[in-house]
């Protein structure tokens, strides 16, 4: 297991796009320490902030996270990255495979555009987790995002595929959703606003938009499959499906193929 240990708080925002187990395994100790990770003209290098210990394995641990560490695990395709502490924005953006585990909190746009792999945040996530960045067509696109703590607003905005699980989430969870599955124990106002397709499973919610219509309670085979799929990720979320559920269909302002299941 290779390890990067934070020696001091970063002097500026750092870009970890190119820091992953596969890339590090091809480089020498000196080359790794000289990797540029700064985002200003000062030219901060990895060795300036971190102690580096390499073993060519497919696992990388970042000891001592910080909210200035941006794009950690972005474009990761294989292997595992574990961060002890917080990370900044765009955690795992565009990730295609492997696993990413954060013991602290994550900034906004976590897992944006991620097509594969599993991202687990033990703490809280900022706004637009699993959501689309500015001008992007899609948010989460096939990966699995698990937020054990709370998520901000617009969780899963424009997500197209994959699964998001969260504890509590802010307003507009699943907004503009294209497809996929989002489950949360509680969300704020207007869940699923503008969603086209996709499934929201909610323990509780704030105000529901007027463009959703209740279709009643249904015992569908699909819910059995979804429950099985969720149980391996989070029994707490799978248990939502064991309760009596009310189903809302919408958003009727779009093609209205989305659905929101609410535990009674």
């Amino acid at each position, binding site marked *: 297991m290779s390890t990067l240990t934070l020696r001091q708080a970063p002097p500026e925002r750092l870009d970890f796009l190119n820091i992953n187990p596969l890339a590090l395994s091809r480089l020498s100790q000196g080359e790794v320490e000289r990797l540029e990770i700064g985002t200003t003209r000062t030219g901060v290098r990895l060795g300036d902030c971190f102690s580096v210990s390499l073993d060519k394995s497919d696992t990388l641990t970042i000891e001592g996270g910080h909210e200035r560490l941006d794009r950690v695990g972005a474009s990761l395709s294989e292997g595992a990255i574990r961060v002890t502490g917080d990370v900044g924005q765009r955690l795992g953006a565009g990730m295609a495979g492997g696993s990413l585990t954060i013991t602290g909190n994550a900034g906004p746009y976590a897992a944006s555009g991620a097509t594969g792999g599993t991202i687990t945040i033990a703490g809280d996530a900022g706004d637009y987790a699993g959501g689309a960045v500015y001008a992007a067509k899609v948010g989460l696109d096939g990966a699995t995002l698990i937020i054990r703590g709370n998520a901000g607003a617009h969780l899963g905005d424009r997500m197209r595929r994959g699964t998001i699980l969260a504890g509590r989430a802010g307003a507009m969870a699943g907004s503009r959703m294209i497809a996929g599955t989002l489950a949360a124990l509680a969300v704020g106002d207007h869940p699923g606003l503008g969603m086209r397709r996709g499934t929201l499973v909610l323990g509780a919610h704030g105000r529901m938009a007027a463009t959703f219509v209740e279709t009643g309670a*249904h015992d569908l085979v699909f819910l059995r499959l979804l429950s*099985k799929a969720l149980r391996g990720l989070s029994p707490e979320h799978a248990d939502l499906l064991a309760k009596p559920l009310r189903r809302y269909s919408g958003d009727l302002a779009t093609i209205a193929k989305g659905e929101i299941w609410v535990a009674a």
Partner: protein
Amino acid sequence: MSDLSLNGIPVVDTFAEAFDVAGTAIIVTNDTAKWAMIAATTMTGFATSVIGCGAEAGIDAELSPEETPDGRPGVRILLFGFEPNGLKEQLIKRVGQCILTCPGTACYAGVEGPTKIKLGGAIRYFGDGFAVAKRLPDATGKERRYWRIPVMDGEFLCEDSVRAVDGAVGGGNLLFLGRTHAETLKVAEVAVEAAKAVPGAILPFPGGIVRSGSKVGGRTKGMMASTNDAYCPTLKGRAGSALPAECGVVLEIVIDALTSQGVSDSMRAGLHAATEIGGKHGLIAVTAGNYGGNLGRHHYHLRDLIARDDAKLEG
């Protein structure tokens, strides 16, 4: 008649000639085993011969809730056709008319294989634009795509595509030469039970038994197949009859399986079961049907099936 015997019953030293076919399996589930079986029985009706029915189909096994993707009772159905396109057409028609229509059913792929057959992805058009697709991982973590089609009892859930296997074989057979109809039917029934217990094998004819064995072509122009006159007891004594004087009835079992080994195992099980009780029921001999060995690639020699397993061949 033969220098081979099993359990004291003569076994003709010949072979069953079988063919490469396209084969697939689906799993149909329902809230109760009763309704899963109703759906499966309906879908596998009129599927005895690929020549006349477009497909050969049968029920492979009843599945417990632990064995199905959605945790409900289910049935595994096997379907065979001449080639993948014909199989696809039959599969869509039969699922569309018999599974989609049955209250409470859901439909899943029942076998892995190299050839993809779009099933839910074709039937979804019944949903008139209201159907939605969903990708979910199965028990092994593999992502599977399902279509959810709104119907009047809720939703019909159907897997997007199923798979056709390579190496499926159709046409394994055994012929039982007996004295009376009732006694020979009893022997054939026992053989059917043993043969269909082999996983991945079905016997598509009524009750697994066919009384109208056929030969290729006929005296009437245009006939693809006609009665197997050599084994018709009312034609005994004529040139070409293969029946001994004491034979009064011949019944055949036909076997299709997803693998050649499945046909072999199923024929072996049927042969042994039939001969074990054959002495009590007037079984005269067991033989097999073939076309001289020139039409089908798979030849199952009864000599090889007398041994309990492939490793112990004896004559």
